[in-house]
């Protein structure tokens, strides 16, 4: 990052945008003091927040002045219950018990999250966790609130709720700085948009001027669209074709029924999906998408359904051989010391040449001697896909492959998914409508665990 000159007025809501690695996050870290106090680097020039120099003030002293909400809900919680979590920051400031209780009550009322009080963190959805994180910050009554990609793990509804929280803060006169890839949800909240490129500010817009920009203009700047043309969550449940597709063969799923305790998590008695298609699996949070994909990958214990592929039925424990899931956090599935070793792992004596061909096809052959963990997020994803291809998997399942990606990376992923679909069937669990528009041939809309239109498969057994 270099030559940044930025003034943010009190009470302003500023959006920082730009491609990945443009320096958005760095600015947020400068504002909350994590740079230079926690992340080390070379800092020239000065940053001051409400007249206090960042480098001369210990980071803890900014706690009541600057509040920060981060991207990953897994790593910003300390307590196991929600009320204690909201109180955590206030407790650190040494406020009295009655004062903290007063602040909790007010914050909870302001944000309409009474229902979330006294709950266990482990039973919350991603969106609920992010709301608790916001409440924990708001209870400290900071003047400036910094959010670093707060929506990358959220679905449509949760994002709308976060938008209302931001508007509430704005109405209270708080200064808000948001670094974000997804733009649509901020369209009527932001006063100013700062566009960054390669570590410096290359353009500034007012909110009114920025958000009506056409999608082509935004994508040429490396930004995601403000509005997507289609919202597939409004399509009918079940399988719908959205792009021309000429495959005839089908994969049939039979008896996809699974329940946790007394409630069906999914209840699909029969479903035929076209072989070789790229299918987006959509649905609201808790609709059963995750259970569905886990069953499909043979990862759900005691699951009784079968998959018919090429005329052969496969039972749950054989499906592990058939399908492969590329997880949202791809770090979980890279084990070996080099990329080449990684893709060869677990395969029988497939020749090295085949492995190299696949790496070539996925454009990562130049990194074959690198440690997989040293690659970028997109390259890691490719390494995981390469290993699945080499292992001869027929079904590839992706869990939110584009969460937190900028336009170009999303485009690359879409390109990659399109190029796969000759002999491999791809299912993508995603909330990303732009990605669906670009690469999917079909939509599979699951709601309440079922696919029958208008009915809820979820019921008591």
């Amino acid at each position, binding site marked *: 990052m270099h030559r940044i000159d930025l003034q943010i007025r009190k009470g302003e809501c500023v959006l920082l945008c730009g491609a990945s690695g443009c320096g958005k996050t760095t600015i947020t870290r400068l504002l909350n*003091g*994590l740079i230079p*106090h*926690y*992340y080390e680097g070379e800092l020239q020039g000065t940053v001051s927040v409400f007249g206090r120099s960042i480098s001369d003030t210990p*980071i*803890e*002293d*900014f*706690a009541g002045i600057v*509040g*920060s909400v*981060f991207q*990953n809900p*897994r*790593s*910003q*919680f*300390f*307590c*196991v*219950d929600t009320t*204690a979590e909201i*109180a955590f*920051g*206030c*407790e*650190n*400031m*040494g*406020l*009295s*018990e009655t004062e*903290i*209780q007063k602040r*909790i009550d007010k914050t909870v009322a302001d944000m309409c999250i009474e229902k979330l009080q*006294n*709950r*266990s963190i*482990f*039973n919350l959805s991603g969106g609920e966790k992010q709301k608790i994180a916001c409440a924990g910050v708001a209870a*400290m009554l900071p003047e400036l609130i910094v959010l670093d990609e707060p929506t990358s793990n959220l679905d449509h509804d949760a994002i709308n709720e976060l938008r209302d929280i931001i508007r509430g803060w704005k109405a209270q006169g708080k200064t808000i700085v948001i670094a974000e890839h997804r733009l649509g949800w901020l369209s009527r909240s932001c006063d100013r948009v700062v566009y960054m490129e390669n570590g410096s500010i290359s353009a500034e817009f007012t909110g009114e001027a920025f958000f009506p920009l056409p999608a082509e203009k935004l994508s040429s700047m490396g930004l995601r669209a403000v509005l997507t043309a289609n919202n597939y969550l409004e399509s009918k449940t079940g399988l719908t074709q959205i792009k021309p597709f000429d495959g005839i063969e089908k994969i049939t799923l039979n008896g996809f029924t699974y329940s946790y305790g007394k409630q069906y998590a999914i209840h699909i008695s029969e479903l035929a999906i076209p072989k070789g298609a790229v299918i987006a699996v959509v649905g609201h949070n808790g609709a059963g998408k995750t259970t569905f994909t886990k069953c499909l*990958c043979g*990862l759900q214990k005691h699951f009784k359904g079968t998959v018919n592929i090429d005329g052969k039925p496969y039972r749950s424990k054989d499906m*592990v*051989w058939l*399908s*492969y*899931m590329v997880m949202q*956090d791809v*770090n*979980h*599935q*890279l*084990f070996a010391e080099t990329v080449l070793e990684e893709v060869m*792992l*677990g395969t029988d004596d497939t020749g090295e040449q085949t492995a190299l061909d696949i790496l070539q096809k996925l454009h990562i052959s130049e990194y074959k001697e690198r440690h997989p*963990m040293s690659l970028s997020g997109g390259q890691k994803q490719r390494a995981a896909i390469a*290993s699945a291809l080499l*292992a001869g998997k027929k079904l590839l399942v992706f869990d939110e492959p584009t969460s937190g990606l900028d336009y170009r990376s999303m485009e690359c992923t879409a390109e990659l998914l399109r190029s796969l679909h000759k002999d491999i069937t791809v299912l993508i669990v995603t909330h990303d409508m732009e990605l669906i528009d670009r690469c999917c041939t079909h939509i599979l809309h699951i709601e309440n665990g079922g696919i029958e239109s208008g009915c809820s498969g979820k019921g008591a057994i």
Partner: protein
Amino acid sequence: MAGLFTADIENRGLVLDPRTKLIVMITLVVFALGGTGSDIETVRYGTTALSILPLILLMTAKQYKKAAVFGILYAIMKSAEIFLVPHITGVALSIIGLCCLIFVRLMPGLIMGAYMLSSTTVSEFIAAMHRMHIPQQITIPLSVMFRFFPTVLEEFAAINTAMKMRDIRIGGKNAGKFIEYRLVPLMVCSVNIGSELSAAALTRGLGTKVKRTNICKIGSHAQDIAVLLLTTPLHMLWILGMIGVIT
């Protein structure tokens, strides 16, 4: 949710003050494990009776399965000690006798420990430490550590799933590297989460010079007094035995 100090506060039955649990724990360790006063007959019976308390506590915390498993194990060991051990000799005696001795002494404390860890939340734990005047330099690192464990367990589960899909298992082709393949991603993920967690903690003021307050309400209630009343007779019996009033 398995793990340390991660009690599910939505469904955990009767809540005891962490300090009450600690007192019961110490009593069990002193009498059951340490064998204090085992030369006095009434104290011996009292210790056995008190050993059932952790099982009851587990049940009040709605952990019936755990209580049943521990209860059956303890019953088997205890009855073996009473009925089997007097009738066997030789090598069998030394093996079975030793096993019984160790388990019967260890189990009550072990069960109590399981109850303590699974029924207390981190905030209660910190509040209790605070009331006992333990300095912040000890409580804060401990609380962060306890917060970190369940996360690592979650990561571990995800990695296991991933390995299953790649068919890496004991006895497979890459069995020799089984541990390495598991540890590398676990370490990478844990380091990432750990550093994000501390960054988030700093921005929320953990580590300020100000003395930390705590809103977690702990304190003695009827149930605490009841549990304490159940433990005191044993202490009294022991004192009476020591001064020679009873044998």
